[in-house]
């Protein structure tokens, strides 16, 4: 992809509606991460087009950037700041207030004890939540999460699923990737399976909430 020689995605034709929660499945190398990076304006489109909330990703990248929250394998936290300070830092940069910080921490179930701990000392699940709280504070409208379940234990996974469902209820659209073919116990409204750079399957469950 980098050399422009080999497209990581061959032909993906996909519409995700506002407020949807979508799981992108597929084994390693099927182009899931590339699709997310593409939607965030971080990977070049060799052909075709991509729109996020009505904005062209290639042409209006700066607008798209502010609306999209891409969370990769790393959380983008400063290990020597506390969880709250990390979220506050993001809040200061986007002009959000103290109330926004508190409500974001609250929504993600980060209690005051966790919020006052150094991010470097938190568990993987707590760090992921702190990173998601930063997305809430940024008012990111499209959450693109690359393997958000990786490194979390069973309970933390279930909690994360709950958090993502909550996020869609408050207006965010969430697309996340997973390389696992079945997520036990998770009720995901829509599952898209990528294979060889194309959409192999697109299933909407009958019970979307």
């Amino acid at each position: 992809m980098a050399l422009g020689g080999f497209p990581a995605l061959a032909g993906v034709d996909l519409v995700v509606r506002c407020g949807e929660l979508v799981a992108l499945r597929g084994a390693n190398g099927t182009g899931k991460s590339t699709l997310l990076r593409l939607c965030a304006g971080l990977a070049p489109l060799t052909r075709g087009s991509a729109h996020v909330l009505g904005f062209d990703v290639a042409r209006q990248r700066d607008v798209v950037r502010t609306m999209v929250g891409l969370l990769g394998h790393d959380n983008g936290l400063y290990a020597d700041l506390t969880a709250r300070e990390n979220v506050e830092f993001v809040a200061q940069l986007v002009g959000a207030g103290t109330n926004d910080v508190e409500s974001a921490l609250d929504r993600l179930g980060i209690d005051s004890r966790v919020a006052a701990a150094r991010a470097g000392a938190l568990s993987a699940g707590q760090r992921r939540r702190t990173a998601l709280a930063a997305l809430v504070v940024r008012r990111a409208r499209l959450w693109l999460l690359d393997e958000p379940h990786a490194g979390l234990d069973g309970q933390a996974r279930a909690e994360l699923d709950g958090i993502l469902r909550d996020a869609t209820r408050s207006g965010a659209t969430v697309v996340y990737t997973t390389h696992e073919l079945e997520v036990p116990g998770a009720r995901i409204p829509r599952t898209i399976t990528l294979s060889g750079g194309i959409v192999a399957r697109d299933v909407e469950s009958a019970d979307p909430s």
Partner: protein
Amino acid sequence: MKTGTTTTRVLGIFALLITTWVVVSAFFLTPADVVQGDSVRIMYAHVPTAWIAYLAFVTTAVASGLSLVRKHRTLGFDRVAGASAEVGVLFMAMTLITGSLWGRLTWGTFWQWDPRLTTTLFLFVTYVGYLAIRRVDVDPVRRARRSSVIALLAVLEIPLVHFSVVLWRSLHQEASVLNTDGDVRLDDLMLFTLFSGVVAFTLIFVWLVVHRQRLAAMSDVERLVGLDVAITARRAESTVGGGGI
């Protein structure tokens, strides 16, 4: 695969012929200098190498600028910039070596902290750093962008270095030894030989850069093929793993 074409071969032959003429003329036909004697003959190598080094760094700067602006040709211009900087560092090393040998013979010392020498030395180190960062293995487009920015920053740096060194030296009253530099009287044959040297070295420079950047293009292609193989392997893996879908 080869990097030679008819054009480069013709170029190479011309470079060789003119270089032969310069060698013969510099050693046997041109007269020795009244003051400097035979040591003046170093000039025929020293001046052209310095000219090529500066030409190379200008080429690098221009190619880097183009690499940033012309997005669809980023990698092509970047290869030219890198090739030219490599040749430039080589010629600048030769400039410094021939210069200090000449200095030893005419001023009795290998090195003088004069503005021109000092600037040249910093320029040399700057491009050694530029080449070092090019060797760091990253995604080629990212490397192209990063090295282009560094090459353009070097363009900002050089006048500042030069200006500060001139100011630095002007406060000391010891720079006058270098005035002998301008005292060489050049007759027509000497001028013609010097000019031929510049032409010969320019041809060699072009020849080297063309070959070097073609080589870089080939290694990029090789890398791409390697990447293709890796992606195919990864996909094959995923088809096997995803058999249950």
